[in-house]
């Protein structure tokens, strides 16, 4: 055991002496590993960044909401099974709330009807297309995650009366009223004048596809007057976020009763939660991560081949030294360790340099483009170092093994 320790320290000494003696060669070889580690690490930060971005996006959804809809979220291939479902009517929201009021122990908290579509908003010569337009009740203000920057959400009275008032998102306000406050001003939606009564605080976008900040909310009564949508709508139910599964069961039972489904009938509605979308995104995210890591892993692999090559050269150059060491009593293990440690040392140095570079690049990107999701973490440093050590073992093993197996007689004669 003690002997192994002395051999290890000797091997380390030789390895670093060797790197010092062949500075240029070691640096060039390490460059391959550096590039590989930078590529893999940046990919890692990007993957972590996607995760963080998804989290940030989903925050806008609210993680304690259940969505009762006619169509289930996500991809459906058997659309004919859903198209004949009865509409989800907005009255359900009122009925659910009544039920909540009479059942104090329930996991359900508050139900809000919501109808949505994308419309065009005009103010003077400003025109915004494809704005998410929401028709809902005053209760919406209680379940939404967004704060109010100025003004207020519409009141119960306005909601029921169906007045032409609207609450607009941050970007809408910014685009239509670049220089002044939108409060009390008039905008046109569907050729009708709406008075702006409130502006939401900035909230961010959903996966960069859809911004919560480009929205307009109006009373559902008003919405239904101008968009002839019939009964169809969705119900958003705020529940006890710590008991999601229970709440889902409870809501399902309640909806079946409201829709008077017999025990033999299947559900003719869907209950969705943000987890559903997450599950849909996971395979995409994993696919991107896997492909990215594979491609960047190739760079590391090329680096590893460089190390293997240089270790073979090193073994060849020092064949006579290997013979001498064997004559002086070095075991096969000693020689194996010596060259393995040399390869690992170059990889480790390359790994440290690569991680430093990656950390630098990440912070530069963070300064230049703060919205670009890159997350550099301690776990990434640990993984990076472990990966570089394993790269060294992987690439150093074959040459080190061939060195350890050299016949001392042949090695001593080698010139």
């Amino acid at each position: 055991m003690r002997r192994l320790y002395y051999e290890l320290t000797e091997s380390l000494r030789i390895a670093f002496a060797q790197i010092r003696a062949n500075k240029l060669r070691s640096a060039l070889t390490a460059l391959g590993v550096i590039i590989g580690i930078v590529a893999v690490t940046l990919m890692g930060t990007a993957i972590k960044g996607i995760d963080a971005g998804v989290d940030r996006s989903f925050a806008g959804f609210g993680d304690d909401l259940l969505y009762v809809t006619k169509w289930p979220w996500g991809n459906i291939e058997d659309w004919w099974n859903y198209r004949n479902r009865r509409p989800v009517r907005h009255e359900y929201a009122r009925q659910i709330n009544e039920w909540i009021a009479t059942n104090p122990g329930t996991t359900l908290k508050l139900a809000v009807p919501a109808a949505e579509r994308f419309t065009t908003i005009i103010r003077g010569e400003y025109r915004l297309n494809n704005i998410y337009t929401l028709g809902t009740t005053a209760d919406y203000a209680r379940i939404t995650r967004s704060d109010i920057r100025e003004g207020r959400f519409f009141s119960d009275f306005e909601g029921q009366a169906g007045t032409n008032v609207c609450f607009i998102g941050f970007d809408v306000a910014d685009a239509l009223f670049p220089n002044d406050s939108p409060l009390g001003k008039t905008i046109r939606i569907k050729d009708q004048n709406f008075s702006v009564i409130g502006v939401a605080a900035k909230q961010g976008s959903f996966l960069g596809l859809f911004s919560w900040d480009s929205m307009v909310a109006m009373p559902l009564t008003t919405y239904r007057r101008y968009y002839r949508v019939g009964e169809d709508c969705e119900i958003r139910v705020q529940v006890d976020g710590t008991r999601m599964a229970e709440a889902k069961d409870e809501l399902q039972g309640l909806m079946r009763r409201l829709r008077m489904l017999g025990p033999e009938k299947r559900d003719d509605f869907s209950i969705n939660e943000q987890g559903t979308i997450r599950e849909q995104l996971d395979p995409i995210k994993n696919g991107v991560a896997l492909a990215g890591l594979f491609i960047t892993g190739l760079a590391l692999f090329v680096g590893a081949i460089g190390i293997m090559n240089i270790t073979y050269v090193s073994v060849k150059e020092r064949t006579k030294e290997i013979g001498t060491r064997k004559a002086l009593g070095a075991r096969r293990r000693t020689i194996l360790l010596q060259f393995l440690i040399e390869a690992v040392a170059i990889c480790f140095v390359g790994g440290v340099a690569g991680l430093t570079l990656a950390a630098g690049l990440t912070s530069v990107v963070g300064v230049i483009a703060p919205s670009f999701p890159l997350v550099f973490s301690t776990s990434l440093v640990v993984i990076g170092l472990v990966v570089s050590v394993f790269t060294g073992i992987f690439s150093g093993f074959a040459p080190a093994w061939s060195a350890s197996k050299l016949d001392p007689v042949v090695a001593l004669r080698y010139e």
Partner: protein
Amino acid sequence: MTASSAPAAARSVRPPGQLVIQIDGVTKLYQMGEETIHALRGVALTIRRNEYLAIMGPSGSGKSTLMNMLGCLDTPTAGHYDFNGKNVASMVDDELADIRNREIGFVFQTFNLLPRSNALHNVELPLIYAGLSRSERLQRAAQALTDVGLGDRMHHRPNELSGGQRQRVAIARALVTRPSIILADEPTGNLDSKTGVEIMDLFEHLYELGNTLIVVTHEEDVARHARRIVRLRDGLIESDQTV
């Protein structure tokens, strides 16, 4: 004392001690392509402690093969080889490495020092493989270098030393493990004649201190220093005489 000033009669002969090496019927075959080469064809030899032996022979006589065999760098194709009573012929690589480390001190024609390490570290090296602590290693390595007259050159690298000094470092490295035998392969082959004489004087001194020396050479001048000369020809011992 130099070689020329030392008449054979005036040299001390130490009484041989216990048996160190006993080989019997050793053969070694090499396969060179289609051809099989009989490097050794049945060699028997006993070497005792405190002997000073020269192995001579023209090239191709098998003396290098015999030296590799004696040095436990190689194992015989057939025959017996006992080293201090242990059967070497059947040992595996790592056991041979341990025998080389503990029992044999090598001195090479080309010195074979590590170029980037100083004299002290070169001498220390076999002690690392022996598993000695750093303080003991350094103390013994320094002592060995002092013994060969290089006490003031310990921190010089090989390229800062003369040929004779390099060979002295190599001899110190061979001595430092206190081996049973010191095996020198043409120790003066890469040195000028004056330095060669100095090295042979050092060997004489080591012999008088009680070391067992085996020198492989093709030079009569070198062999003359030994107390016993074994001559090989065509893989067989031609003569074995005490001088």
